[in-house]
């Protein structure tokens, strides 16, 4: 495919005239500001430091020639009672979204046309806050042109997880923008499974007020697809924010997570596990800012790579002056199942307070031969033994999931995925 001219990219990507035309006051304002942000910073370039290990080209090309395929996570969490929302090729299915106690669910497409909406205070605002110190212009593009997304206003403890199930076929190109607002003391779990498009640009903005709890579990699958996601989180005092992503498929994935701890005694966890085989490039880019006292943040990433798969981790903990008693933990590890695969890690700490405990580590290793022999000596065939050791390798990331039932579902899914390979 020939590279599109910069001109073509800009006009097509940064502004969507009919969308602006049909937008109500609040979203028009947000979209136009986001478009200006994106234009000011320009699209990411290969030479950008922040895109050192992952080429941005695939995300900025004008045309997609990918072919989305069958989801492997289909049926996952089916045995759990969930509040289900289906996306098909980037469109929300069903005219009326489900209703549930202590929360409201709306679609961006319908809320966008209104002049006033609660999402106004969040939509594009957390994304804009996340543009410093590093520009994330593709997230600004998303705010400018996203046509669909789920808007959830959580006012109490929502009993069942909200489950977004995304499917796509053919060559769809999806830009989706979700907004979740968790009121003081409210709680919700949001699950996302599948793929929104052959190529997708997904933004999730989450505002967790004081004492709120937000849990996010995501399963990314598919084969020939490219996916760029951003999570922007603003976390209040004594609030809890946890996100876990399992990626088992897809040629190209970049998951960015930008969190700001703004209230004292809050705790966040960003975790992920991926299984990459062959034509697979997986990037986790995390930026956590501690701007309050006595907060805890954890980053736990485990990547299993084989047949030339590539894993990337860029993770930063920024502790601002005054963010005393910060407890920051960051671990990124890869299990390389052969010599062809690669793991590139760039862990960073930037600390301006003196009373903090931050630790970070990054390792790359092969299967432990002693453990492998031990298992085989008990009659476990080699392939199965490698699966068991792989599971044991990713266990630390899965343990970050708070809900033990959902964690078990993830574990079972992983086991099935591996034995199917």
């Amino acid at each position, binding site marked *: 495919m020939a590279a599109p001219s910069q001109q073509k990219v800009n006009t097509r990507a940064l502004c969507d005239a009919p969308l602006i035309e049909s937008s109500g006051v609040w979203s028009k304002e947000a979209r136009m500001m986001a478009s200006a942000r994106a234009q000011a910073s320009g699209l990411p370039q290969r030479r950008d430091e922040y895109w050192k290990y992952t080429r941005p080209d695939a995300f900025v090309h004008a045309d997609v020639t990918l072919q989305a395929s069958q989801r492997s996570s289909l049926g996952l969490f089916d045995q759990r009672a969930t509040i289900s929302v289906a996306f098909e090729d980037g469109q929300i299915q069903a005219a009326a979204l489900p209703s549930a106690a202590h929360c409201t669910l709306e679609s961006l497409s319908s809320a966008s046309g209104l002049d006033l909406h609660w999402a106004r205070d969040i939509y594009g605002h957390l994304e804009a806050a996340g543009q410093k110190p590093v520009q994330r212009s593709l997230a600004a593009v998303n705010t400018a042109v996203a046509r669909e997304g789920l808007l959830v206003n959580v006012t109490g403890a929502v009993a069942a997880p909200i489950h977004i199930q995304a499917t796509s076929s053919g060559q769809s190109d999806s830009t989706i923008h979700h907004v979740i607002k968790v009121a003081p003391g409210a709680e919700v779990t949001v699950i996302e499974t599948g793929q929104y498009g052959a190529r997708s640009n997904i933004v999730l903005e989450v505002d967790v007020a004081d004492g709120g709890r937000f849990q996010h579990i995501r399963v990314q699958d598919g084969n020939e697809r490219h996916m760029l996601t951003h999570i922007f989180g603003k976390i209040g005092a004594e609030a809890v924010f946890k996100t876990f992503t399992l990626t088992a498929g897809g040629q190209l994935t970049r998951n960015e997570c930008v969190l700001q701890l703004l209230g004292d005694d809050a705790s966040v966890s960003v975790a992920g596990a991926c299984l990459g085989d062959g034509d697979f490039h997986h990037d986790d880019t995390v930026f956590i800012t501690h701007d309050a006292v006595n907060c805890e943040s954890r980053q736990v990433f485990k990547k299993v790579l084989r047949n030339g798969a590539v894993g990337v981790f860029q993770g930063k903990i920024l502790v601002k002056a005054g963010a005393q008693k910060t407890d920051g933990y960051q671990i990124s590890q890869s299990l390389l199942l052969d010599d062809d695969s690669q793991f590139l890690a760039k862990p960073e700490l930037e600390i301006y307070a003196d009373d903090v405990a931050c630790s970070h580590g990054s390792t790359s290793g092969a299967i432990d031969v002693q453990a492998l022999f031990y298992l085989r000596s008990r009659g476990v065939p080699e392939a199965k033994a490698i699966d068991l050791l792989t599971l044991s390798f990713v266990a*630390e990331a899965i343990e970050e999931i708070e809900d033990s039932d959902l964690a078990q579902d993830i574990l079972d899914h992983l086991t099935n995925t591996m034995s199917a390979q």
Partner: protein
Amino acid sequence: MLNIKNLHVKLEEEDKQILKGVNLSLEPGKVHAIMGPNGSGKSTLSYVLSGKGGYEVTEGAAQLEGVDILDMEAEERAAAGLFLAFQYPVEIPGVGNMTFLRTAVNAQRKLRSEEEMSAGEFLKVVRAKAKDLKIDAEMLKRSVNVGFSGGEKKRNEILQMAMLEPKMCILDETDSGLDVDAMKLVSQGVNALRDENRTFLVITHYQRLLDHIKPDVVHIMANGRIIKTGGPELALEVEQNGYADLLEEIA
């Protein structure tokens, strides 16, 4: 049961000969003990028999019930009935002890084309056997050997052996690190499995284990060879006099 003929083994990576012609013939129903100075090749023999990589057999053969095992994969040898209780059991973080045991039991059954053990039956059997070895439910739930004390690891090895019911059991210094009571438990576990169709090869440095697990035959290994074979009295002799006299005899 197990016949070892003129077994020569060197390290794959370096030119170091460790076993220099081991001959052993272990009959069904018997308990054989091997004693010998540190570094004489006892663990190496047990590893080579069970299929660990890193060694090269340069000469000789080993047959389990008449079948050559040295070309088999480790898991095939296990399914054929060979079991090694490790001198240093391996810790596997993240793999639950129960999952491990059940996977092993069913993998062996599958390799032997037998029916798998149901979850319910497995649970029943494992609980009973664990109880005999004073392994509590909490230990069964933990990751394999992780955070286990030295003695707990050894008891866990015996639990695996009891679950897998191998024909040929090799125990490499299972007594090391055991307190007096644990030694009794482990020995009871072993003795409970003794029958006319099962053979044990017990590697140990001390007579005290052999007080509990009474051997039929005792071998002395030194410098990669079996230098002397005798009855239980040979172990007592070693206990009293050490290896000096025996080594002199062959020098």
